């Protein structure tokens, strides 16, 4: 629901939606202490995303005469404009919102249920199994990466370089080589293990023990969500262009002048 309504680009509007995500997280009793490390982890990505949006906002097609504060490379290259700033704030809010929504879904929904949903949607079992293996192995991979890092550090290796290129290079060489080697071998082992448990025996006749039964409430929620989706698309993208950053920019511009 939140995702679809988030199709708009108006920062005030998106701010309200982001708040509603936080309310949902509160309702789901997710402590912020579990979210902050995640936010810290993605902070660099968000900053990069912000800078990129600020430098290259798609405003040229929307606005003929943007209110330019200054040019990054004078006289006329890389303008930093009021509209660009507002667009960027909206974009960052939307980005954060999407990440938080996904995070929330993963935290409050058992992986198992997500997988059964795929089965229910009649996606092939291979798809669900791949996803299931992916999730099941997250703790294993984290543990393995720690070991690899420590094994290199124990031989005097450093990766905490200031220079991101140097840092990336060190990580690439000394972490990824063993990580990839181990992953490839594990992939072979897993293939053997699932084959030895009859996975490809006769997929069409496979039994699914976990069953997902939709109740009336589920159908109600699905209907409401579909209405929101279509409505959101109509409002934001196809026709009315409500909740667009352009309106906000216009308002602020009038106030400024």
């Amino acid at each position, binding site marked *: 629901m939140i995702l679809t309504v988030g199709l708009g680009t108006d920062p005030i509007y998106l701010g309200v939606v982001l708040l509603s995500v936080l309310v949902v997280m509160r309702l789901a009793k997710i402590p912020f202490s579990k979210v902050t490390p995640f936010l810290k982890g993605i902070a660099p990505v968000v900053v990069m995303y912000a800078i990129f949006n600020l430098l290259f906002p798609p405003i040229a097609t929307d606005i003929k005469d943007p209110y330019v504060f200054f040019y990054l490379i004078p006289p006329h290259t890389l303008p930093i404009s009021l509209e660009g700033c507002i667009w960027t704030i909206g974009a960052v809010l939307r980005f954060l919102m999407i990440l938080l929504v996904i995070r929330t879904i993963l935290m409050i929904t*058992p*992986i*198992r249920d997500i*997988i059964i949903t795929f089965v229910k949607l009649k996606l092939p079992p291979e798809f669900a*199994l791949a996803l*299931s*293996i992916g*999730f*099941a*192995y997250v*703790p*294993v991979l984290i543990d*393995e990466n720690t*070991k*690899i890092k*420590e*094994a*290199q*550090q*124990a*031989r*005097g*290796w*450093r990766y905490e370089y200031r220079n991101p290129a140097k840092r990336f290079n060190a990580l690439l*060489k*000394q*972490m990824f*080589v*063993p990580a990839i*080697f*181990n992953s490839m*071998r*594990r992939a072979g*082992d*897993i*293939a*053997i*293990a*699932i*084959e*030895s*448990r*009859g*996975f*490809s*025996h*006769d997929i069409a*006749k*496979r*039994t*699914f*023990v*976990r*069953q997902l039964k939709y109740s009336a409430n589920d159908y109600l929620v699905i209907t409401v969500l579909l209405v929101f989706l279509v409505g959101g698309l109509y409002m934001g993208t196809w026709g009315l262009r409500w909740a667009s950053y352009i309106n906000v920019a216009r308002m602020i511009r009038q106030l400024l002048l």
Partner: protein
Amino acid sequence: MADVVFENVSYTYAGDSEPALKNISLRTHKGETVLIAGPAGAGKTTLCRCINGLIPHYFRGHLEGKVLVGDVDTRTSTISSLSHMAAMLFQDPSSQLVNPTVFDEIAFGPENYGVPREEILSRVKDSVESMRLKGYEERNPHSLSGGEQQACALAAIVSMRPEVYVLDEPTSNLDPIGSMRVLSHLSELSKSENATMIIVEHKLEELLHQVDRLIVMQEGRIVAEGEPRKMLEDAESLNKLGLKTPQTALLFSRLRKLDATLKIPLTFDDAVLEMSTFLKSHMKVDAVAKPPERVVSDRTAGNERETIIRTQDLVHVYEAGTVALRGVSLEIRRGDFLAIIGQNGSGKTTLVKHFNGLLRPTQGTVSVFGLDASKASIRELSTKVGYCFQNPDHQICTDSVQKELEFGPRNLELPEDEIQIRVKEVTDAIGLQGMLDDNPFNRSKGERQRIAVASVLTMKPDVLVVDEPTTGQDDRMARQMMDFYTKLHNEDGKTVIVITHDMNLAAEYANRVFVMWNGEVILSGSPREVFAESETIEKTYLKAPQITRFAQALKSFGFPPNVLTVDEMYSEIKQRVGG
């Protein structure tokens, strides 16, 4: 009922010149338990892979002869249909658990075979109960301990209701507590089901008494086969083949040369009973009166040597809140050959990671060669304490052995000629000549392990820490590894710290032993002092070497409680019976 039949089977993996199996003929019978033993590289795993069709359908290579499961020729069937009759359990539990929960894991096999839902639910319930996994149904299998993981993997094939179980080293990756658990599950399974079991395992001591037939393989062939008791009469030659033969069997097969009426025991209790009867009738009268006053001299006291590592009230709490160390105070002296033993999770690895700065104390102090290990950099400490991880594949990160050996010294920014001198020294010491240009990933596991140690040794550490160097290896390879560390200890003067689960190796090689339990060092001293404390050791679910426990069980005959080797026990007995 499906018998497994091998008719003159030979198999060569694609790319290999030497066959992995050479002319194997074998037939198992319904309900039979067959134990396959033999050194690494004997072809045991290859044989297992032939049974459920992984060979020839997954592994490419050249197969001669015929493998039948029931009346089905494996060549004309598929891995999945063969696995329904002959299910396989693998060595590493973590690479065979593919579902998000224990429940789904156990249901996975029957689901694939289209078993009706109600039936699956009842099978899962059965398996959960018999493998003691109740309450774990909704957990991620990978969050369980090693023993629990393997119990889950076993439950997942039991639920397939196969006629034949093929179990390829099911306990090799587990700690003592975990392997005890899995072995007891196997024993119940072999009693309760009338399924055939084919088990590849190094731990003969715990299994032999419930096995109908022992098959010994070497270099792709079956070299010996028969009823276990009969086979153990020549325990020494089995031992020479790299089998971890029970120490009591070794002892009895030697004593049989003195008295051929002695029966080879299959279990520990049998051995004690048999020996008491024997001693009662054969022991010289004056020997009974002799009290166990003789304390066999220790390999070292060594208290005068300089302390190089010292911890004081060391506490470590992981970020997640797990208390891994609860106030450890210890001293390690120059020239120690120290064995740290304990279950997984008892704090062994956490402890040694403080010695080179990979972990920092939450409370308490660690001093390494006078440096404060809570402040000194890992780089600085790594030149004092070299740390070799259990799995060499977590460490090897270059495409040639030469580069791998240069890796450490280069990180230390040493001059080029110094780097080359060190590489040369270590190459000669470890015998890596001729493979310097090879890609380490193409070498065997044993060689990769040596390369990994070599790449730590080029850092020239005074102390070498090796984390479970012998896990998953056969007895002969394990001894080769230990001999190698002994050489570094004796000839190069290294202080060696070995983390191990193998009590026999700790007893034979170390001059000091720490026993860890629940984040504390609960026993420390020479192997003789430590293993004499059998009650404390048992509290940690570890077992002193079988021969030590044997002597302790016979203490009424005046045996000392700290016998460490079969040789010692042999001469103790000989003293008492004369001859």
